[in-house]
């Protein structure tokens, strides 16, 4: 969870930066553009400059009614071109009038941003206007919504307009706005709608208040029903997403386990190697290549991560695992020792916190439905897991190396007799499994920081997947990771993450009662 949170913060920072930059750019760009619109047709006839100038001087007036009248006039007739002037006035103004001027400026800026070419800017401007509480923004939002090409920005504009209408004095407008919010399934509208329902509940509530409350109640009900469904969809998606992370991690582990009966406790650290390889690639791109190439670092990092982890795997096989064949428990302990050393080495060399900046095309997400937002990086990982499974399938079942691997898996001695170099097959398979770990690490940089403990976060879950899935069957690993990942996310909302884990452990133990050697156990005499 921590990972997700960190990821969110990074995304927010990145987003904030773009918004700020665009906002500043917008000030210069759109002052011209709105002026062009104003000059274009009868929509907004050029206001008599004298009254605006008069109002500008009155904004700082001592008299509150004069001040308010001036602000009202400015809202009606002014536009974003006044912002520099207002800013100047504000800088010299008394503390008490700064706040309204600030609001006025924000209003103008947001209005200008409604026509920005960037959808995110338009959307956040619409959202800001919706929470500003200024009814004068309603026509702007309506006008912008009518011309809006993007479905979700239009949605936000309509939602914001409805939210502003809810504050209207006219009960029929209120009820209509509540209806609109219900139509839109707007989660943002719920708090205000609830207030309206409460206002209508009181004994002294007037008749119009009651009709509004009724409309609001109906809207809330629709919104909440929708919320349940969209939640279910999102939970499902999160489950699939966790499952695919587990799957990519477990595939390498499971292949090695199936072939050599070895659980590689350093698998998590091989993932870490992949993640750091990605990080280093990023740094090299940043330092030596033109910024225009930077976006492509991520795809370049994939083979780098694979090869780096595979290289480490070969080394590990040649120096440690080779000498421990037929002693699975000892192998486990030795590889754990290796994992400790690797983790500490990374900590000493890289320090504790290093983050990989996700490339632009993977940040953000797709809104599929109201309230259902699917981040691109998760979708990417799901896609990657499918690619990995297909790749392994072809390698294992459609290539001559795969045939040898399967032969050794089924009967090592017989394969050796038939001339298969079993030790070489072992080494290559181990390197391949390690490379898969590297790819998993590469993918994990999308959802979290790169730190020495990266491998430890999911590794026990991955072990459980391998144990539950059974030895040497691809299908077992897929089903087990789907089961464990899905179950994890399914019970997390009701039990909490911790008890969810405990629950899964219990489930796995009970499951092993029923199938002691996993889902798809190898049948035959050599299955000890």
């Amino acid at each position, binding site marked *: 969870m921590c990972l997700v949170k960190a990821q969110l913060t990074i995304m927010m920072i990145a987003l904030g930066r773009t918004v700020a930059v665009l906002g500043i750019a917008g000030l210069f760009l759109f002052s011209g553009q709105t002026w062009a619109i104003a000059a274009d047709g009868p929509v907004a006839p050029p206001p008599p400059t004298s009254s605006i100038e008069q109002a500008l001087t009155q904004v700082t007036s001592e008299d509150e009614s004069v001040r308010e009248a001036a602000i009202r006039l400015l809202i009606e007739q002014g536009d974003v071109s006044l912002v520099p002037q207002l800013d100047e006035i504000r800088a010299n103004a008394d503390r008490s009038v700064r706040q309204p001027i600030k609001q006025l400026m924000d209003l103008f800026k947001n209005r200008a941003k409604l026509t920005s070419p960037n959808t995110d800017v338009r959307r956040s401007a619409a959202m800001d206007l919706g929470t500003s509480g200024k009814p004068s923004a309603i026509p702007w939002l309506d006008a912008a919504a009518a011309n809006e090409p993007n479905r979700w920005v239009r949605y936000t504009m309509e939602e914001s307009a409805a939210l502003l209408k809810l504050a209207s004095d006219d009960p029929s407008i209120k009820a209509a706005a509540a209806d609109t919010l219900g139509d839109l399934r707007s989660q943002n509208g719920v708090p205000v709608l609830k207030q309206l329902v409460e206002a209508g509940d009181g004994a002294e509530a007037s008749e119009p208040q009651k009709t509004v409350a009724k409309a609001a109640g109906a809207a809330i009900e629709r919104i909440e029903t929708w919320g349940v469904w969209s939640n279910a969809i999102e939970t499902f998606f999160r489950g699939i997403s966790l499952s695919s992370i587990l799957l990519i991690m477990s595939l390498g582990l499971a292949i090695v*386990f199936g072939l050599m*009966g070895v*659980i590689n406790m350093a698998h998590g650290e091989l993932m870490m190697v992949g993640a750091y390889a990605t990080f280093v690639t990023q740094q090299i791109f940043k330092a030596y290549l033109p910024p225009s190439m930077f976006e492509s670092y991520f795809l370049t990092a994939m083979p780098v991560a694979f090869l780096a982890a595979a290289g480490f795997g070969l080394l590990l096989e040649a120096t*440690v695992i080779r*000498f*421990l064949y*037929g*002693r*699975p*428990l*000892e192998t*486990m*302990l*030795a590889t*754990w*020792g*290796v*994992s*400790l*050393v*690797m*983790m*500490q*080495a990374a900590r*000493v060399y890289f320090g504790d916190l290093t983050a990989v900046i996700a490339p632009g095309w993977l940040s953000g997400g797709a809104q599929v439905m109201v309230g259902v937002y699917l981040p691109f990086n998760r979708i990417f990982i799901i896609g990657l897991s499918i690619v990995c499974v297909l790749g392994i399938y072809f390698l294992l079942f459609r290539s001559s190396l795969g045939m040898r691997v399967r032969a050794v898996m089924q009967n090592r001695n017989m394969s050796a007799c038939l001339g298969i170099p079993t030790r070489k097959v072992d080494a290559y398979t181990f390197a391949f499994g390690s490379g898969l770990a590297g790819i998993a690490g590469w993918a994990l940089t999308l959802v979290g920081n790169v730190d020495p403990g990266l491998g430890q976060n999911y590794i*026990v879950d991955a*072990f*459980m997947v*391998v*144990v539950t899935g059974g030895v040497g069957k691809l299908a077992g690993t897929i089903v087990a990771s789907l089961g464990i990942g899905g179950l994890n996310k399914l019970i997390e909302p009701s039990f909490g993450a*911790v*008890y969810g*884990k*405990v629950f899964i*452990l219990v489930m*796995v*133990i*009970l499951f*092993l*009662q*029923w199938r*002691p*050697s996993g889902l798809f156990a190898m049948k035959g005499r050599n299955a*000890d």
Partner: protein
Amino acid sequence: MTDGTTGTNRGGGLAFWIVGFVLLVAMPLLNVMPPEDSWLHLSDFSLNRFGKFLAFAILALGLDLIWGYTGILSLGQGVFFGLGAYCMGMHLMLTIGKESVYGSDLPDFMVWNQVKELPFFWKPFFSFPAAVLGAILVPMLFASVFGFFAFRSRIKGVYFAIITQALALAAWLVFNRNDTNLGGTNGLTDFKQVVGYRLSEPFTQRGLYVLTVLCLGGAYLMCRWIIGSRAGRVLIAVRDSEQRVVFSGYTPANYKLFVFVVAAGLAGLAGMLYVPQVGIITPAQIGVLPSLEMVIWVAVGGRGSLAGAVLGAVIVNYGRSILTNYFPELWPFILGGLFVLVVLLFPDGLVGIIRKGKSLLSPLKAGVGKAAVPEGER
């Protein structure tokens, strides 16, 4: 893997009494008798620290029983250690009484967490005998339930190791929670007294040390007895070939469960003795990593040898306490390297090295005695 029945040989008897004398009489005397500036003097701190290592040695004995003799690798011994430690810790927490920072009858962390009433599972631990019994029986009970399901379905080898590791992770997560009312990340600490004796007094600590030595001696004798018994021979047979044991008409699951439960009891006892001597127990001592470290104690000392387990626990922990003091960054390298080295080059640990050295010194004896020992595969 060499023969594991060396615990019963005659030569071990004398060594046992010598080591027992040194630990039980000589060391406390060196703490009390010589003046403080004498080179013979053993400081309170050293004695206390040594007591902690000996508590670990009790756990190592149990781990050696299941891993060294029966061939079951449990990566979750920290859980049983933690259960024992928390049982005693809860009792010590309750005896603090009004002396706590907030002056409440409730433990401090409950006051922080705004728990108004003592949770029901804390109540039995007001009594000291209940805490002592609980510290040993709760881990045993837990181990028997867990072990029953695990061994019944013939989970073994790597599978068992993974499952116990997951158990350690789960226990660590649960003990870290605040809503389980076990002190959360901070654990239980700030103890004041045990059965009326102040824990800050050197006398109390000396007493705890002596108690630990006695418990270690008792545990050692019990383990030796188990190994020497008929059941012990079955355990070793299970390690060397479980299938042959099945075909000989035994039920390995029962023997495994028995030894697993005994090991859990010893781990609980170790935890119980650890807490008053160290003065704190947190989830950090019971997670995945500590549980794995326990395995290396036995591996370094020499599995399949009870003396080796004790030796390993003391030496590794002594090394740890020195090295983490001077080179904290280096310790994980050493621990990891030690693991690889021991597993690859010295599968029988220090005891194996000593034995090899002995056999080199007396080639005649080695030629007769060692040749008959079969090489246990897997």
